[in-house]
């Protein structure tokens, strides 16, 4: 499964791109996706630990299995308002 993961704010600055291309085996979970992003962007690891992963616009736990059609994004701690 291939995902184009959306990145925002400092996550985007640290990784140098507003998306990350991630390839995962079938049955992979949100936790697997986290590990792959951390591997690709070592500078963003600390922020990634404090971020949630959104799947189809809702926060997802690490044990959630991913589908190839899912929209995935890294959500750093928010600061709107």
């Amino acid at each position, binding site marked *: 499964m291939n995902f184009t993961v*959306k990145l*925002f*704010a*400092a996550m985007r*600055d640290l990784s140098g791109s507003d998306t990350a291309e991630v390839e995962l085996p079938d049955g992979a979970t949100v936790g697997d996706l986290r590990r792959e992003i951390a591997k690709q962007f070592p500078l963003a690891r600390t*922020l990634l630990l*404090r971020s949630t992963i*959104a799947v189809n*616009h*809702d926060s997802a736990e690490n044990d959630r299995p991913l589908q190839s059609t899912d929209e995935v*994004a890294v*959500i*750093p*701690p*928010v*600061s*709107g*308002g």
Partner: protein
Amino acid sequence: MFRLTHDAIDHANLLEMARSPHCGAVVLFLGTVRDLTGQQVTVFLEYEAYAPMAEKKLAEIEAETRRRWSVGEIAIAHRLGRLEVGEVSVAVAVSCPHRAEAFEACRYVIDTLKELVPIWKKENAPDGTGEWVHQSAKPGAT
């Protein structure tokens, strides 16, 4: 009603939209760009959003607010892009039959928005440096 916009927020219009003949109270909250955070001087802010998720979360906040209080109308607008000191970054207008619940409901909307909605701000200092604000959101903390 909620809106993400790059244009200046017309908060008087937002307030009018929240008025209802069934309501005796309308509360308007405005968030405005502050020049100082601790010792740090801010020259301007930049806001960005993950728009489809932000709209979904705002719809959920509206639904939960209506579940908890007898709300007439809710109108929310959040600004995106570059904002100068003093400009309105967010506006929340809520009407209810009575003032106590209008104050409570309006406070719940802004506190929950700051906690849950994927919007981020970057504080830009006089020396040209900028920093995204990523402290853990606590309702009412910032």
